[in-house]
């Protein structure tokens, strides 16, 4: 994951969403450990409290949990939970934006759907 200094998103939100993305991509599995607050601070050159804030957001949602003396781990069921959470936002974040841009360029919704059908995937 990468953090952006130019983004309007606060760094701690970027940390939280970055960890979520890695879980969704399967790069961090359930029951596996994530970087500690101090490691985040070191690797990304940010204040440990900022990193902690991002990690706390995820613990409050039950995506991460703390093993005393060991660190933060990905909770069981986190992947399923995250998928549901992101699916709820998918229409607004991606479909609507695609349609908006498409209509700006005079593509009809039908044409956009055709484009999606026609694109068989990155390997074709």
């Amino acid at each position, binding site marked *: *994951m*990468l953090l*952006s*200094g130019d983004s309007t998103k606060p760094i701690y939100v970027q940390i939280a969403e970055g960890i979520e993305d*890695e879980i969704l*991509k399967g*790069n*961090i599995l359930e029951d*596996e450990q994530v*970087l500690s607050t101090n*490691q985040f601070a*070191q*690797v990304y*050159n940010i204040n440990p409290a900022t990193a902690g804030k991002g990690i706390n957001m995820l613990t409050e949602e039950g995506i991460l949990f703390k093993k005393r003396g060991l660190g933060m781990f990905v909770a069981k069921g986190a992947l399923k939970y995250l998928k549901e959470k992101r699916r709820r936002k998918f229409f607004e974040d991606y479909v609507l934006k695609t349609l908006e841009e498409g209509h700006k360029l005079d593509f009809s919704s039908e044409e956009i759907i055709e484009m999606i059908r026609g694109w068989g995937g*990155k390997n074709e």
Partner: protein
Amino acid sequence: MNKIVECRMLTKVFDNQAKALDQVNLDIEENRIYGLLGRNGAGKTTLLKLITGQLFPTTGNVSLFGKRPHENEALLGNICFVKENAFYLKSFRDLKVKDVLKMAEAVYPSWDCSFAEQLAVCFRLDVNKKTKSLSKGMLSAAAIIIGLACRAPLTIFDEAYLGLDAVLRQQFYNTLLQDYTENPRTIIFSTHLIEECKGLMDRVVILEEGEILLHEDMDKINEKSFYVAGRRELVEQHLKGKCILHTEEMGRLVRMAIFDSLSDIEQNAMRLDGIEIQPMPLQKLFITLTAGNGGGENEQNAAAV
């Protein structure tokens, strides 16, 4: 593009110590703004002093406006070297700022009197004060005013802003850019405040241990400096053959700092594989390039950028 400075195999050794500058070849083109970057002791000031004839090279040649810069009085009015602690000479201490400005006026044929006055107001510099009673920031301001108002065809700012607050530094950069647009000239900017000054730079020279590590257009550097992050095997596969400056491993994930071009097609293919790409700021590139020299410990520091 006209070259106003040509350095050939320029080497400088001080008292049989390590080479301060080692066989440097460098051309400075007319009317561009150069950023000269390097760590402490990298040889920046030595290079600038050799170019302006304040030091003799141990071996190698410098030509400035096609002539030898050493003991060459005719060139003096064409170069302005602004450095920190510019008024250290005893003879300057009891002079008023306005007298120093008058001296500068006598030296530089291109001096703009009203611009200097305007700058003094801008930087809140009291020209009736003696230089010895000026604060650190105001000493810098006085030196910068000379550097700007002289409009010398080659103007060098060597860490010239020391002691200036953030507002005045910004004012300096803005004024410099505006005046440069109206009166193009060659400017060399030696600085440690990389992020702050990068907007000014048109071309970047990075010195490391007396050698030129990088000499490139700012635009080209921006097109080649990236952070790439994702699954290790995928990142490695996509970056095969690219110039990788640094790798940081985090479980299955890696983050790499690269200095190489990535075409749109390459970038899209990487994104489809869940790989993130982000521009790497100049300061991070600088740290990654120069912090690595000198052992494994420093490699770790480079990772922290």
